[in-house]
């Protein structure tokens, strides 16, 4: 399907195509996706690690593109691990397109990734943590309470069979979804609009996540009024917004990320020492 895009360009570059081998490899690697959580960019290392077979296949012979791809996939990342492969599949399809199409807007890869991360995680969390885990634990516990040693194993089986099935099939479904979508988009020439749409989706979701996932837990009390409540009374979550805006400014001024990181930690500890936090 992707062949269409390149026949127009009439450039005789060899088409790069991902095969089941790479996709399967990403699936295996995705099992370790959430093992290196860090506070700064959460699951970014696991993401880059898992996607590596795809990147190697597509950019293995092009150092410059590889550099760009590695940087792009070390950005903030977090999606419910049990369904993470659907995003790996879609991203793989976009990367494949990018490797074959010179005019592809690489920013759109991260825009789509970010845009889908939040919504997909919301679905994944409610399905796996909220539903399957509860059922599995309920059945496992009831058996264990009756003295069957099989109880805990039943729990693990009931949770992990759906987990691995969903990871495996979503990998290929995601990829198929991505390629089908991209080729359609390419044909009708509305790629620019899709990028814009993904940007809107991504930014709105980030805006919501700044409000819900960032906390500046000041506990200053003034005249028996909590300062936090007063500020939230003006605009809810104003402090997280200010903090994010401040960090954004620093990033724009090319302040190194390490310094910003150190600043936040020192700010936290000093703040706690003088009783702000």
């Amino acid at each position: 399907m992707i062949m269409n895009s390149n026949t127009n360009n009439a450039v005789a570059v060899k088409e790069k195509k991902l095969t089941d081998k790479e996709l399967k490899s990403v699936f295996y690697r995705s099992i370790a996706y959430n093992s290196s959580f860090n506070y700064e960019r959460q699951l970014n290392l696991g993401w880059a690690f898992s996607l590596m077979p795809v990147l190697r296949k597509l950019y293995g012979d092009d150092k410059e593109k590889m550099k760009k791809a590695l940087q792009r996939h070390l950005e903030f990342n977090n999606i419910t691990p049990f369904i993470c492969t659907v995003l790996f599949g879609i991203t793989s399809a976009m990367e494949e397109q990018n490797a074959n199409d010179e005019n592809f807007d690489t920013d759109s890869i991260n825009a789509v990734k970010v845009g889908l991360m939040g919504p997909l995680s919301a679905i994944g969390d409610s399905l796996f943590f909220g539903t399957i885990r509860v059922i599995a634990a309920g059945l496992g516990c009831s058996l264990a309470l009756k003295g069957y040693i099989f109880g805990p194993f039943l729990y693990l089986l009931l949770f992990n069979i759906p987990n691995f099935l969903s990871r495996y099939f979503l990998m290929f479904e995601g990829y198929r979804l991505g390629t089908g979508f991209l080729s359609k988009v390419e044909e009708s020439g509305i790629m620019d609009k899709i990028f814009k749409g993904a940007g809107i989706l991504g930014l709105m979701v980030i805006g919501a996540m700044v409000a819900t996932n960032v906390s500046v837990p000041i506990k200053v009390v003034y005249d028996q009024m909590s300062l936090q409540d007063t500020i939230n009374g003006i605009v809810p979550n104003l402090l997280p917004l200010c903090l994010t805006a401040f960090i954004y400014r620093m990033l724009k001024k090319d302040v190194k990320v390490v310094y910003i990181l150190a600043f936040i930690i020192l700010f936290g500890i000093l703040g706690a020492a003088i009783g702000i936090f």
Partner: protein
Amino acid sequence: MGTAFAITTGAGIEGAVALSLPIATFALLIKQLIYTFVRGYFVHRADAYALKGDDKKVAAMHVWSTLAYCVPMAIVVGICFYVGGPVVQAILDKVPKFIMAGLSAASGMLPALGFAMLIKMIVSKELAPYFFIGFLIAGYLNIPVLGIACIAICIAILVIIKNGKDKMKYVGGADDNEF
């Protein structure tokens, strides 16, 4: 930890939990430190390798970062179990309170760095208002992220349709200090 104490001391569930609680607190402190500093360090090593285009080293950082938590944690918990809960409690009392509170405050603020980096990647003058729309809906209406994503999809579709009629061309990457 509770399970191990329940088996070795035969203290029952409540007793075992009480014994293991200081260890859990101590382990949490270590976890915070590793997640912030040690793993942060590996993230930045990975950034440096990405700049050089070294894919093998970037992947290796993930493995090291994983081990950097699992191995020390296994050792710490093993030692804690050996010396017992009360000893750990005594050590814990010596750690200044503000360090614990500060680290927990910092871990609440750190995601802002990740989000700011994402914003820097996507934002343009034209798109900046959408960030604030998302932020304001989340704050004022308490709609969960999934709901906001659905609204965002609708808005994106509306904007795309409108732009199709106007035959406007989207020019990306024209971001300025509009934030």
